[in-house]
């Protein structure tokens, strides 16, 4: 973790110091005045220390970017509970933004990190988010160069919301995207699916036990390892909300192809399967936050799997399906069951809910 910066001009015993306000965020913390400054100096800067952020200017001025095409992404993050096995809102938000850049083939560089906090939020919880964001940034090799904090009255926000933008560069010669997906491509996943969504749902519905943890992780180094191996990768996606099935739908739709997944090939950890069974969920529709789906040319499938599996985040990587030509009037995404039948995997109307029927 970054070294503690020396405290700013405000000492910890002053009434505006974050610690002295009795451990909860107040409306004044979002007012832009002394309390905001105290929050920034005592909480944000020490954890996220970097030269760009430390200037605390209205905009971060970055050095010239390396050659290539610029990638820019943004995401908003809400999660209940905000701290869960394997992560927290802060860690999740940085990973999510980093991963959006990584799957586009961009080397992530700079992130912004903006918070809307609910009056009454425990400062300790905020510190957890900040430490989580810092940890993710360090793991991903990115810097959080700009941020903002607003505070809304109690009852008008669910503890904390995060919005994050990410800037990266796609090196010259690299061209990932659904336009490159073609019939014959192999569909790979970098690890077991559904860990994040199952963990969060388990927390919400009183399911406990060891072994359940979000897969939340920054994927940039895994993606670079895969691309460096020389295999022909056509597209990458991170199956977040809606899970693998929803992501495959998006790709099939954009590339006008058909995706056929093999039920027996899809890795699901036993604990995740148990949570899904208990709540009536289908793991194929449950979010991952540290996995990527890769569309690679068929002849490179095995080599691609080896490259992924060689990376610490690629444990349990598997080939889960293939791309076929789109059939008119037929489902764009299908699942081959263990019994030799095929059934369509449709788009969900909304989020999966626990059911009893």
């Amino acid at each position, binding site marked *: 973790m970054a070294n503690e910066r020396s405290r700013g001009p405000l000492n910890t015993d002053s009434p505006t110091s974050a610690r002295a306000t009795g451990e909860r965020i107040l409306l004044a913390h979002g007012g832009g005045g002394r309390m905001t400054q105290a929050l920034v100096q005592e909480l944000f800067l020490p954890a996220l220390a970097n030269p760009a952020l430390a200037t605390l200017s209205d905009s971060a001025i970055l050095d010239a970017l390396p050659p290539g095409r610029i990638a820019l992404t943004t995401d908003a993050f809400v999660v209940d509970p905000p701290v869960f096995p394997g992560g927290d809102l802060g860690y999740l938000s940085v990973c999510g933004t980093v991963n959006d850049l990584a799957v586009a083939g961009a080397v992530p560089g700079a992130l912004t990190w903006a918070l809307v906090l609910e009056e009454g939020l425990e400062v300790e919880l905020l510190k957890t988010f900040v430490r989580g964001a810092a940890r993710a940034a360090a793991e991903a090799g990115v810097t959080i160069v700009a941020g903002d904090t607003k505070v809304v009255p109690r009852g008008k926000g669910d503890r904390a919301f995060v919005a994050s933008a990410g800037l990266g560069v796609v090196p010259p010669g690299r061209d990932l995207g659904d336009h490159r997906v073609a019939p014959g491509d192999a569909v790979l996943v970098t690890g077991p699916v559904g860990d994040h969504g199952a963990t969060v749902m388990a927390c919400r*519905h*009183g399911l406990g036990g060891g072994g359940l943890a979000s897969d939340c992780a920054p994927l940039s180094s895994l993606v670079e390892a895969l691309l460096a191996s020389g295999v022909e990768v056509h597209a990458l996606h991170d199956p977040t909300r809606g899970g693998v099935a929803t992501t495959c739908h998006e790709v099939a739709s954009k590339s006008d192809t058909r995706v056929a997944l093999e039920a027996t090939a899809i890795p699901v950890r*036993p604990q995740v*399967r148990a949570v899904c*069974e208990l*709540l*009536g969920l289908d793991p194929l529709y449950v979010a991952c936050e540290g996995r990527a789906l890769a569309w690679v040319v068929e002849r490179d499938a095995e080599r691609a799997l080896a490259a992924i599996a060689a990376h610490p985040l690629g444990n349990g990587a598997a080939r889960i399906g293939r791309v076929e030509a789109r*059939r008119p*009037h*037929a*489902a764009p995404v*299908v699942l081959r*069951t*263990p*019994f*030799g*039948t*095929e*059934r*369509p*995997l*449709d*788009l*969900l*109307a*909304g989020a999966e*809910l*626990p*059911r*009893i*029927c």
Partner: protein
Amino acid sequence: MNAAATFADPGAVRGLLARIVSAAGRLPRRVTLMEVCGTHTHAIAAAGLRRLLPPTVRLIAGPGCPVCVTPVGYVDRAEALSHRPGTIVATFGDLIRVPSSTGSLERARASGGDVRVVYSPRDALQIARANPDREVIFLGVGFETTVPTVAAALAEAEADHVANFLVLSGHKVMPPPLRALASDPDVKVDGFLLPGHVSVITGSDAFAFVAEELGMPAVVVGFTPTDVLRGVEALVERLARRHAEVVNLYTRVVTAEGNTTARMLVDRFFAPVDAVWRGLGAIPGSGLALRPDVAHRDAARIEVEVPEPVEPPGCRCGEVLKGTIDPPACPLFATTCTPTSAIGACMVSSEGTCAAWYRHERAQV
């Protein structure tokens, strides 16, 4: 015990299918088997089992989805209650998108109604404990499997004097619609796959009448692919022999007499009433209402303004529920009625016949 894997063993599935084909060869004509459990509909569709059966064995879904058969008026009342000051409506997730006359519980929540999804009636009771100044109304839908859990929550509320926990009962029971279906001239069913978890509570003896009075074979089966196929095999084999009997094939959890503790708890709080089944109309003695002596727990007694129920025009859910048509025969299916904009209840619940068909069977893969 990863029982799920072994009860879904592809080798056993293949073996059972071969037996079914062999038995079907001795059938005098094509037969129609009906399952009456939404969870069966889902399980069969998810494994693609229908497509594996020989053409002489037709497997259809009956009115087994408790959400689908919940009348519009019930959802209207639940919505109205959610807008009532000081009220929290707690519901299973299954009900949240069911279309009412004016919207749904999901939309009610978006426009300010306090609607909360729970996994268990006990969770609703916990909400009542945590909010003593509010009235928590639990939406009691479901068949015999679920009613005891609601009764148990009521028992706990009584024992702990949690006065602000009420139930709006939309519960229904299974044997009466089976009788109604069997005597309906439009419905041509030769045998039933009986709901395994309902039977856990009722006992397989409760369904003996299907053979004794209705003259049809029926099997109590579980929900894994091998359970369902063992049931299909048993029915086909008995139809080939023209032998009507009710067999329990889910012996690992179903007994002849069922769960008497659960039934006694249900009897303490609920009594049979006539009930309306969406799409099927009124079926005598097929519903459960809270007994008069627990009127203080009965949300049906709350005065609240409810719109005139509006059944969607053109909707053929009733015929789908009876198994007389497949979803594609309804003009609304996959045109104006889709999972994202469901008109009829059969499409809303993911176990509804139309939803299951749309998701798993629609496209010719």
